[in-house]
């Protein structure tokens, strides 16, 4: 996937580019609004990641200009401002998604994938990763010879981990993305939920080698294995 990143802060751009490279995205980075707009109009991109506070030209203006030229490339806004008005303005001017700083790179990647597939009209019914199949509409998970219905939370948790295979998610990150809780509830809900998922999707007949793809990293978090 070919992504245009318009972001003035070099260190943020660095780790975004690194994160994108890890999942195989090609990134073109522009440091100010004016050049960003130019590049966006000249070259073809699958998606544009746009910061709002930019030198030369403000992010919202860049956004408006791109849309004025009838360019339908999906645009995700990155901003340190979380005001409702800022968000609404962004959407009004034609942004496809809005992510507040600080953000998780995994979340950005997932959102890019989502807006791109939405634009292409190709929301896949099922998700397959490392042999585990997840049906997006019926919330049925299929692993080896077991097929189970998942609850809303179990589904969201599994989807969150599956969308970024190989990445470690801390408990807080999972809490924020799956439960939308921005504080530590002081409980082990994530562990309980992962254990239930594991229990639902394994049985005694399974051979020893067939490891369930969600791996626990002690003291750190969870990872959906990528093999």
């Amino acid at each position, binding site marked *: 996937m070919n992504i245009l990143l318009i972001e003035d802060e070099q260190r943020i751009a660095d780790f975004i580019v690194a994160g994108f490279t890890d999942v195989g995205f090609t990134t073109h980075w522009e440091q100010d609004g004016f050049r960003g707009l130019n590049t966006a109009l000249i070259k073809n991109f699958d998606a544009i990641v746009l910061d709002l506070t930019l030198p030369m030209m403000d992010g919202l203006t860049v956004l408006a200009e791109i849309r004025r030229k009838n360019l339908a490339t999906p645009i995700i806004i990155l901003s340190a401002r979380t005001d409702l008005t800022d968000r609404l303005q962004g959407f009004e001017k034609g942004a496809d998604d809005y992510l507040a700083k*600080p*953000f998780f790179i995994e979340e950005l990647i997932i959102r890019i994938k989502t807006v791109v597939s939405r634009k292409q009209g190709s929301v896949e019914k099922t998700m397959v990763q490392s042999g585990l199949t997840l049906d997006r509409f019926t919330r049925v998970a299929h692993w080896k010879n077991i097929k189970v219905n998942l609850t809303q939370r179990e589904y969201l948790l599994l989807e969150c981990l599956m969308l970024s295979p190989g990445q470690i998610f*801390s408990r807080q990150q999972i809490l924020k993305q799956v439960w939308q809780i921005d504080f530590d509830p*002081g409980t082990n*809900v994530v562990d*309980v939920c992962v254990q239930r998922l594991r229990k639902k999707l394994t049985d005694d007949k399974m051979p020893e080698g067939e490891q369930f793809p969600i791996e626990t990293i002690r003291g750190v*978090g969870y990872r959906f294995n990528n093999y």
Partner: protein
Amino acid sequence: MIQSFRLNVFLGVLACMLIFAVATRIMVRQVSEGPILLYQYETLSKHIDNEIEELKQSPQNKIDVASQVQIVQYNLGKSFADLRPNELQVWMASSPSQGQNQLVGLIENASWRDLSFTIEKPGMTLAEISYQGETWSVLRASGLQEDMFVAVNKNLLLRSVSTIMSTREAVVKNLWPLLIVFALVATLFMSYWALKPIMRLQQSFTKVQLGSPNERISEAHFFREFRDFIRYFNDLIDHLRTSYKQAARFSSDAAHELRTPLTIIRGHLHRLVNESSDGSKLQLELSLVAEEVERLISISNKLLMLSLADAGGIKLDKQEIKLLDLVGEMVEDLKLFNPDIDFDFEIPSNLRLKADADLFYQLLTNLMGNAVKYNHPQGQVKCSAELRNDQVWVTVANTTSLTLEGLDHRVFERFYRHRQSVNQNLSEKPGDGLGLSLCREIVLAHGGQIEIKTEPEQWVKIRSSWEVA
């Protein structure tokens, strides 16, 4: 001290009217004596004039002077209602009668005053003399061969003055109730009329909103005396607006300045955690740092929210929220987290409230989170809601391991943490002391109230009011 300004004005005006009435009553007596006397002299001189005219026309030879004088005295006496003997004396300059000689003697030295300014006929003069301890008014009329003198005892004149005054008194007595009613009505009108511009000013004040930048009160629509006042108010509003803008700008800037480095730290930590070998000491330590960074992010988010609230800048996107669904879902989650705690909720199925969905969710997770966090291991949590006076009251009640003493409104203050717990062995719970103050700001931004109450057997209740949908 009377609190109502309107009442004060009313009483003030009423007092003024009373003073005015009493003063007029006293003054009228003083002032009206002169004009009434003058009027009497005028009448008297007219009568005298008539008599002189008649005397001129009558054949002079037939009647002698003494008889003429008697006729004149008789005729003049008729114009007084209560004439007593000897109070009226008439004589001709050359032939006063015997009883009148003394009067004539006094006239010699009297100072004469011209009466012609009240009477058209010239040649009428007036003198006042003292005779036998009483004051007499003497009128001298010319026009005949010799001057004619008419002396009137002043008591006679004063008697008629008091008659006139008592008539006036009777009129006032009849008018009294009417006067009181009139005074009351006038006072009411005055106080209303005096207060009207102030009321109008007050209305304009309440209409001014801090949020809209260029709204001011126009000086042109009010009395000149209010201008300074209005200017002062406008300056104050401008001042407030400036600091409001600065505060909002500051939080926005601060947020940006904090978020950028936090984003970078978090991003790199995340990469490092992923890249270090699984289960290594380094990875563990990095994830601990990452946890602290998360805390920092959470605190900076809350502080931003609070400073926004201080600047009055929390923007609400009000939606209808079906409380039962939200609480039900949350309780399901919490049950999963804490299987030993007994959850209970009592919410009418059709109860909906109007609030910003994100903020309300944040508030509820915060309250429920606290209810669980500071509970006994096998405690109870009850969530209930009811509709009262067009407001939805949401209550979260729970048993707690904290000491109830000191668990009061201070919990809504920033960075306040109630640390004492009944069981001292309980380990310190993590928290930043901002959660409940944020809850309070969320409730206040919606125009509601929030309060905390403790009840026997270690129960704590926090309830908040919301707009019904």
